């Protein structure tokens, strides 16, 4: 009887109806932001090289980032950076067995989200 029931268990793999808990959202966003940062590396290195090469290239670069589209790009990148940073700190905290109960993990996840939003807002305010 028991076995029959487990076999008939419904499966739900529809991504649009699965509601992830906050810890899982933080976790998958940590991975996605890491991939985004990896993909952005060549652009960031190029910007660093332009900013240091000469005064002319520095001015060209700062001129480029006056454009609103590139400012939006930077803000999007800052989302990835700040989330990866704060979620990473949360992981490090858990590695030293700090905030590991479910309740505290949920609290720290929400804290990470708050810090994300605050940092991104501050960054956007500074560059605009």
């Amino acid at each position, binding site marked *: 009887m028991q076995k029959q029931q487990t076999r008939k268990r419904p499966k739900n793999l529809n991504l649009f109806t699965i509601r992830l808990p906050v810890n899982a959202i933080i976790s998958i966003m940590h*991975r996605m932001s890491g991939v985004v940062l990896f993909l952005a590396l060549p652009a960031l*290195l190029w910007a660093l090289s332009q900013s240091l*090469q000469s005064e002319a290239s520095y001015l060209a670069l700062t001129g480029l980032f006056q454009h609103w589209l590139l400012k939006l790009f930077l803000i999007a990148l800052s989302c990835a950076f700040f989330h990866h*940073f704060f979620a990473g700190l949360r992981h490090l905290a858990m590695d030293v067995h700090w905030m590991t109960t479910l309740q505290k993990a949920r609290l720290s996840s929400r804290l990470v989200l708050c810090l994300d939003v605050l940092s991104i807002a501050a960054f956007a305010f500074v560059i605009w």
Partner: protein
Amino acid sequence: MLIELLTKKYPGMRLWLAQRLSAVAMAAYLLGLALMLLMQQPAGYEDWLELMSPWWWRLFTLLFFVSLVMHAWLGVRDVFKDYIFNLKLRAVMQIVVDVLLIVYLIWSGVILWSIQFS
């Protein structure tokens, strides 16, 4: 206990620790950079050059990039292991990423050590 975990018996532990240590190194560097930016308030090319050019700061910056490459290598490796099930394809993609990361590291060294002094 910790020392035993880092011996050849548990090769994954060293990679795990490398990912954590590189994360701590990068976080420390970025906090230092943020502090320097706040204190010196660089306003143009000259100020930016002055901030980046001390040899010890360039050394720290290079260490940051070493950590970054190590961290990215381990991170991308984990992502590939989770989602790329074709072993040959995964190996090829991993080699592409390895080469890219080595190029990035050399590139960052070239950027830092070709800073022109005015």
